[in-house]
């Protein structure tokens, strides 16, 4: 017996280094304990006084003494009992070693590794309480005649809290316009609404905003947050995804069209399978690839693939079902009824999902107007880079001629010349770094040229010959030879430790608690995602509609009825008004999954139209919504709002991402790409392109616009359920010192100066443009005083002439020599259309710009009430 155990321990030592005993515990030990042991030694009874629900209890042991001696499998009672070598055998009955040799070995390795128990909570806490299962129960239909206000009002009345009065009309129009379109109302729109006495004025306002193309841009950005949209792949190369913009525009179009949400989801999960005749539905599958991804020569293929599968499984779970499926990757979900097996069954539905870049002709509704100009501009850069590279070929040819003692290249055989060029003959270490830099730039520019091609960043079931994607390091089999890969449970999430094989499936908990039965998911190459999509988008899926209406509610009140929009499991906050959440979900499904119908219902409620107010002692968090909670503008609203106030916002929609003006230091910041550096960031040369809405700006994972970033922009790598709004001193730097803010202030001042003649009229107009209202007497007085003071300052201190742009310096520490090298990147060949500059306007306009800068920085501008 002892000998046997020692031999087990001996075998194990060799393997021990490769294995994490904590992962072993969660992947193997714990499920066995739950399945085979706790019935008698934990839940309900503790036979022989032995409790196996925590490490402490295990060490304490039962009637026969400690069950485990960490680090000493041979001396551990538990192992003696389960190995079947002694007089007593556990679990009782059946053949010796009933748990199987492999499991017993696992227990031995786990004890050898110190018997870690990574979660300190006893196992009994991982059973599911009724109140934690609410999201899996069928949606309850509301009683006829229900309303948001009746439901909220009942709770307020019960708590004895009075609701705030209705907000003023000027407050309301600014609130609803930002909420629905992400832009401020124009001063004219504010006046028109404030003066409209008609009882239908508000309903007309709702209709106008829901019908505005700006609506889809604003709500689309919110969906892109959840989907983790970016125009690049992240990691070391951060390769461009040159056709990803078509997915972005698809999302905006779908929301503007109020495409039924169930269809919207089906298209994104399996548009290629379910709607093969609809080219747009294939573009929609870009959703599944939105996460960061990379495969390089130093990547392990099985790991890369597994990372994608984990990413898409968890990404879909979080975004569509409000469940953190990723928690069940290594072990049964700690809190929610999601066994690891279900996680891998869902993953199996994606197992044949491969990257595709099919040709899909541009749609009539896509913005292709910039493609030709963009291509031409990029081609000019490519041509120049080619010329730079040519120098090194010439250098190599010269070296070859010298080596062979000839004076004309024609005197050398072609293959000798070609080899010299290939081997970079005569190219020294510093020159070689420069060569690598140009090669890297060339590769990046060439990838970018695909922006203008009618391809899609999409997926397919199995590879498509000639239209696969993923880069040079990834090899696909021919479509005819492709077989659906087997999917196994991976204990501890370890790709090398495949356990039980699983078939594609869904979350078993849903069929258990709701009306929605388990669907049959095909196990061939095709049809898996399609079946999964039908299950997710079913009106009987208890999660899908609830998750989305909760998001819509959050978009208006800052917080969902269930406050953790991406987590409807046990650890997410319970809904404050569960019956209201269900009523909205029912309304959503009955309206034909109309997102706009849910907006409309919410916007028409009194709750949405309330004024701000103070928290009641009985409801300090305002969970009962007795008043309307104010919020800071989100990063995009702030940037777009500044452009709008300045009269510069360009409303052109769609097309490849544009490059706005960003902080110059960041633009010139050299960025590593594998083996070399990326070209410097270049703003779009035309003003109207730079000044487009932020949703249309190129989203580079490694280079976010610092102004968007500092105002809590979405993290592009992780699904963002809700924007943070922390107040930071670096925000003051960006908004008060940043070039972007100064440029907008000057543009606003310039515009106002041309529209009004007197200082008082100009100041009043500036207030109207920023706040949608005229200044009061006190404000007017302060502003005019500041204006006079600054005008005097500017008359005395003319602005310095603009300095030519600083050169872009590339600095790299060579991998080859360890030395650092510096190169200057040539300027963009395209002419650059400048923003209005201080020396181009009179001193009075510059004084007005000082006022405008303060207006754009003010609390009134930055908050929505």
């Amino acid at each position: 017996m002892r000998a046997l155990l020692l031999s087990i321990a001996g075998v194990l030592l060799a393997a021990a280094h490769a294995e994490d005993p904590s992962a072993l515990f969660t992947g193997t030990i714990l499920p066995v304990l739950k399945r085979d042991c706790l019935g008698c030694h934990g839940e309900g009874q503790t036979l022989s006084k032995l409790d196996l629900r925590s490490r402490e209890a295990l060490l304490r042991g039962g009637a026969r003494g400690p069950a485990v001696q960490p680090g000493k499998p041979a001396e551990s009672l538990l192992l003696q009992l389960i190995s079947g070598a002694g007089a007593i055998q556990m679990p009782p009955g059946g053949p010796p070693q009933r748990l199987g040799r492999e499991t017993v070995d696992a227990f031995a390795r786990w004890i050898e590794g110190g018997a870690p128990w990574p979660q300190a909570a006893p196992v009994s806490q991982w059973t599911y309480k009724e109140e934690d299962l609410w999201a899996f129960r069928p949606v309850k239909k509301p009683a006829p005649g229900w309303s948001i206000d009746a439901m909220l009002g009942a709770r307020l009345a019960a708590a004895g809290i009075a609701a705030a009065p209705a907000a003023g009309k000027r407050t309301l129009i600014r609130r609803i316009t930002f909420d629905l379109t992400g832009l401020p109302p124009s001063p004219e729109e504010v006046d028109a609404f404030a003066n409209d006495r008609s009882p239908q004025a508000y309903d007309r306002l709702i209709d106008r905003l829901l019908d505005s193309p700006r609506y889809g841009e604003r709500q689309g950005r919110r969906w892109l947050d959840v989907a983790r949209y970016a125009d690049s792949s992240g990691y070391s190369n951060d390769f461009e995804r040159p056709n990803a913009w078509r997915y972005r525009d698809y999302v905006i179009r779908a929301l503007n069209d109020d495409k039924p949400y169930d269809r919207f989801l089906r298209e994104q999960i399996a548009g290629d399978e379910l709607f093969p005749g609809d080219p747009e539905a294939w573009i929609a599958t870009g959703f599944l690839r939105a996460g960061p991804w990379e495969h390089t020569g130093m990547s392990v293929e099985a790991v890369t693939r597994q990372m994608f599968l984990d990413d898409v499984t968890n990404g879909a779970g979080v975004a569509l079902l409000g469940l953190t499926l990723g928690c069940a990757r290594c072990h049964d979900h700690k809190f929610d009824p999601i066994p690891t097996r279900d996680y891998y069954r869902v993953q199996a539905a994606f197992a044949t999902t491969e990257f595709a870049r099919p040709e899909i002709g541009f749609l009539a509704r896509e913005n292709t107007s910039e493609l030709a100009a963009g291509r031409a501009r990029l081609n000019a850069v490519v041509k120049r880079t080619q010329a730079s590279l040519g120098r090194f070929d010439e250098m190599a040819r010269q070296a070859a001629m010298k080596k062979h003692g000839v004076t004309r290249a024609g005197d050398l055989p072609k293959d000798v010349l070609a080899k010299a060029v290939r081997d970079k003959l005569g190219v020294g270490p510093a020159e070689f770094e420069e060569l690598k830099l140009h090669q890297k730039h060339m590769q990046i520019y060439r990838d970018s040229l695909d922006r203008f091609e009618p391809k899609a960043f999409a997926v397919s079931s199995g590879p498509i010959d000639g239209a696969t994607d993923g880069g040079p390091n990834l090899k696909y089999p021919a479509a005819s030879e492709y077989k659906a890969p087997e999917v196994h449970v991976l204990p501890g999430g370890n790709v090398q430790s495949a356990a039980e094989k699983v078939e594609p499936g869904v979350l078993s908990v849903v069929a258990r608690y709701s009306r929605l039965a388990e669907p049959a998911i095909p196990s061939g190459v095709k049809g898996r995602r399609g079946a999964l999509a039908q299950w997710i988008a079913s009106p009987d899926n208890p999660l899908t509609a609830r998750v989305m209406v909760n998001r819509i509610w959050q978009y208006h009140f800052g917080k969902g009825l269930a406050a953790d929009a991406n987590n409807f499991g046990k650890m997410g906050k319970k809904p404050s008004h569960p019956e209201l959440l269900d009523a909205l979900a029912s309304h959503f499904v009955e309206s034909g999954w109309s997102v706009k119908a849910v907006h409309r219902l919410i916007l028409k409620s009194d709750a949405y139209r309330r004024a701000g107010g103070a928290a009641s002692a009985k409801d300090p968090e305002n969970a009962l919504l007795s008043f309307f909670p104010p919020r800071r503008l989100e990063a995009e609203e702030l940037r777009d709002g500044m452009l709008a106030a300045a009269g510069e916002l360009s409303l052109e929609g769609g097309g490849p991402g544009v490059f706005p003006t960003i902080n110059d230091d960041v633009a010139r910041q050299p960025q590593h790409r594998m083996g070399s550096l990326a070209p410097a960031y270049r703003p779009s040369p035309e003003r109207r392109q730079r000044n487009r809405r932020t949703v249309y700006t190129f989203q580079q994972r490694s280079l976010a616009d610092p102004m968007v970033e500092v105002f809590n922009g979405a993290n592009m790598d992780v699904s963002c359920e809700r924007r943070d709004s922390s107040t930071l001193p670096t925000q003051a730097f960006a908004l008060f010192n940043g070039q972007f803010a100064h440029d907008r202030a000057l543009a606003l001042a310039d515009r106002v100066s041309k529209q009004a003649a007197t200082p008082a009229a100009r100041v009043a107009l500036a207030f109207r443009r920023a706040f949608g209202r005229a200044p009061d007497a006190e404000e007017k007085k302060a502003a005019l005083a500041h204006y006079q003071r600054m005008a005097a300052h500017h008359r005395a201190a003319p602005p310095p002439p603009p300095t030519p742009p600083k050169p872009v310096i590339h600095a790299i520490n060579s991998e080859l020599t360890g030395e650092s090298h510096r190169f200057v990147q040539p300027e963009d060949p395209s002419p650059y259309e400048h923003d209005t500059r201080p020396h181009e306007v009179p001193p009075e306009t510059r004084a007005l710009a000082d006022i405008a800068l303060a207006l754009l920085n003010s609390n009134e501008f930055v908050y929505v009430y």
Partner: protein
Amino acid sequence: MSTKLAPASLNRRELLFHSGMGLGAAALAAILHDEARAADALAPKARHLPAKAKNCIFLLMEGGPSHIDTFDPKPKLAALHMTKFQKERNKFEANMNTGERYYVRSPFQFRRAGRSGVEINALFENFASVVDDVCFYRGLRAESVNHPTALYHLNTGNQFGGDPALGAWVSYGLGTENRNLPSFVVLPDLAFPQGGPANWSNGFLPAHYQGTPLRPLGAPVLDMTPPEGVSKERQKANLDFLGSLNRMHRPRHPEHAELQARIESYELAFRMQAEMPGIVDLDKEPAATREMYGVGGKDPDVEAIGRRCLLARRLVQSGVRFVQVIVSGWDSHDYIDKAHGARIRAVDKPVAALIADLKRTGLLDETLVVWSGEFGRSPDNGIRRGGEVWGRDHNATAMAVWLAGGGVKAGSIVGATDETGLAAVEAVHPIKDFHVTLLRLLGLDDNRLRYLHAGREKQLSQTGGEVIGELLA
């Protein structure tokens, strides 16, 4: 007009009492508590456990420095040099690590240093004099052999990125002692590392804990100074006007405390604007100190690293909690003799000066210094560039790491790698244990340093880890 305001809480309390809203005591307490929490995100906090170190300087050697050619010599490789073997291609190995392989000896001389007699690359002429303050750790194993994923893993505990960096967790756990400066400062090379700013992200923690990179060129903090042509007087006048606008607006929303917090954030920003230039100005240091770090010398590579090491000391001295210095260029697949040689020569003097200077100023006791790459390098190499040159590929199972400073077992070597340096085999621990240990050295308990995010209690180690006791004094 003055923008000087009384402390936030006082203002707000007065305001609430005078607002006539009839706010109950509990609600008032809740609001004040919320504000205090928001306003004091960076206030110094009590540690979980007693510890000596209260600050950390993390010297991140980006690219994967070779342990075999720095602090962990492998004489066996001299015997195996250029021995050919075949490593099967399979889906669990990177393409670049498979195929025809050759063992490669280290091209460097090694020397014994300090009382422990640790063998280090002889090019570390200056560093040799401080090894008695250093604990070399040879047992650490990373998981990924890809730069960005390995960097994210080392910096944030999560290979995918997106989670808070170690410096953000430490700032969250300890707060900072100088509210005019960021708590977590990053000193990158001119080029940012692979994976970019996600390496110093606050992740799901509040943005106060985000790492602030101080750029070696231009304004050290983005937009810390106004555009060219905006004088200090003009900026001050505009700031005063902004203050008056905000003050006139304030009574319209008396219950909305964030407005006050935002007014104060402008004041903090402009205090930072006033204080930062003095701190980054290395001319304030005596010439002898600058020389010690190699600042002002002939070698530009030493200069670039020396400036950052000296700045790291000045920042820690000024109350910054966590400083990360990033030195790139260690990815020596080829020409390792030249490439690693030049890197070692460039870091040797500044890093040795940093330890000696911290010790001299008494800061070493309360500062934890860490030196680590994102992974180590392999004892073997494939054939590239015609087989004429050799270097080493990536290796996640062994790496070059050392610690110094408060609470560290100075003058010791912990753990060991096998005879070729392929893998750590003694005192072996994963990255998460290393993280737990670094937190422990700073008085923080990983299991208590948690943050509730989207319904999940999250922590740096992700699922818990153990302290590597051998590294502690």
